[in-house]
């Protein structure tokens, strides 16, 4: 082994920034074998910072035979703080709100409808693709599902668990901030109630910065046949992955547009073992 050297050119690394936040809401009723228990991800705009705050692992000293005999360590926990100027609508259910859809008049099988007429059916709003000039039973092909808008939110509801992914930059002395990046995947997050301070517009314009304190519940983690302690955080270093593996993982996390006969895919949060599979199988294949 050669003599140690410090701060060699290209090895003066640093980390900075945060961007590309993606929210994945946990929904046990929509567990999918391939994409896991989280609903398709949505972009988190206006993300200004994420602070990871590990805690626990506190030592309790035991004494015997007039000496310090051993230290017992408490379990380690992971908390976090998210700061942002705004949040995706989908986060409302994670922040103690329930969205209420405002429904159009119910569909009637004894009525006729003009093109673009809006009705509700089975709890969703639909728009007529074509004029329905003869009354008929509900025919899904004639109607287009309108996206849920949830204009009404009710507070103080149960908080849903969510996952989060975000990216930080990895820089060095030669490439600057473009050296690489780290992907941070957080699982089993739950947001605590947080203050929102609204103030009058005044002579010092400012935008509210929302802040949420997060606690996490670790998920089981068996990778490559090895069972690790449950974890709530996975970090992937782009400079240490193969490009193919990284692309496969990012396609999962951010989704794809598809094209030329290939269907687009929804973004999803793979569980730890699936993250390894994405990184490894593509690399070996």
């Amino acid at each position, binding site marked *: 082994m050669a003599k140690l050297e410090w701060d060699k050119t290209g090895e003066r690394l640093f980390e900075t*920034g945060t961007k590309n936040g993606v929210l994945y809401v946990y929904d046990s009723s929509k567990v999918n074998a391939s994409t896991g228990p989280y609903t398709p991800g949505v972009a988190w*705009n*206006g993300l200004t910072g994420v602070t990871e705050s590990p805690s626990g692992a506190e030592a309790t000293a035991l004494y015997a035979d007039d000496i310090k005999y051993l230290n017992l360590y408490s379990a380690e926990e992971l908390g976090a703080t998210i700061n942002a*100027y705004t949040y995706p609508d989908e986060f409302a259910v994670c922040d103690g709100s329930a969205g209420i859809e405002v429904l159009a008049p119910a569909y009637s099988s004894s009525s006729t409808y003009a093109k673009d007429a809006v009705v509700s059916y089975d709890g969703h709003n639909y728009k007529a693709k074509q004029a329905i000039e003869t009354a008929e039973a509900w025919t899904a092909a004639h109607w287009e599902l309108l996206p849920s808008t949830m204009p009404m939110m009710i507070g103080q509801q149960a908080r849903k668990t969510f996952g989060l992914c975000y990216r930080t930059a990895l820089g060095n002395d030669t490439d600057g901030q473009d050296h690489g990046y780290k992907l941070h995947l957080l699982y089993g997050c739950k947001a605590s109630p947080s203050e929102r301070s609204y103030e009058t517009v*005044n*002579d010092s*314009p400012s935008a509210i910065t929302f802040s949420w304190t997060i606690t996490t519940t670790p998920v089981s983690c068996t990778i490559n046949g090895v069972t690790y302690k449950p974890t709530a955080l996975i970090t992937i270093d782009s400079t240490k992955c193969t490009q193919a593996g990284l692309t496969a993982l990012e396609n999962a996390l951010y989704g794809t547009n598809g094209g030329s006969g290939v269907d687009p895919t929804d973004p999803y949060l793979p569980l730890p073992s699936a993250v390894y599979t994405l990184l490894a199988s593509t690399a070996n294949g």
Partner: protein
Amino acid sequence: MDSRLELQTKLEQLLGTRNVYFQPPENVKIKYPAIIYSRTRIDARFANNNGYKLDHAYQVIYVHSNPDDSFIDTLALFPTARFQREYTANNLYHDVFIIYYK
């Protein structure tokens, strides 16, 4: 509409005349009372490693000859307006405000 042009329109409506000038060149003949304004600062806020929101600050100078002109109060009540100072030059009163607009 461009936010600067919107501000121009609002200042013209407040003043009730078109004597509102944005960074006028020296050869422009100014009619008084007038508002002369210029962009002094752009405050940027950042998110996602990018600029996210910009606040444009304008220095707005109301130039007039009446020491008791009540339009100063009107301007002071403009949302985000902050009175800075008053001075006299060329026998005209100059009341300086900072206004943030979009």
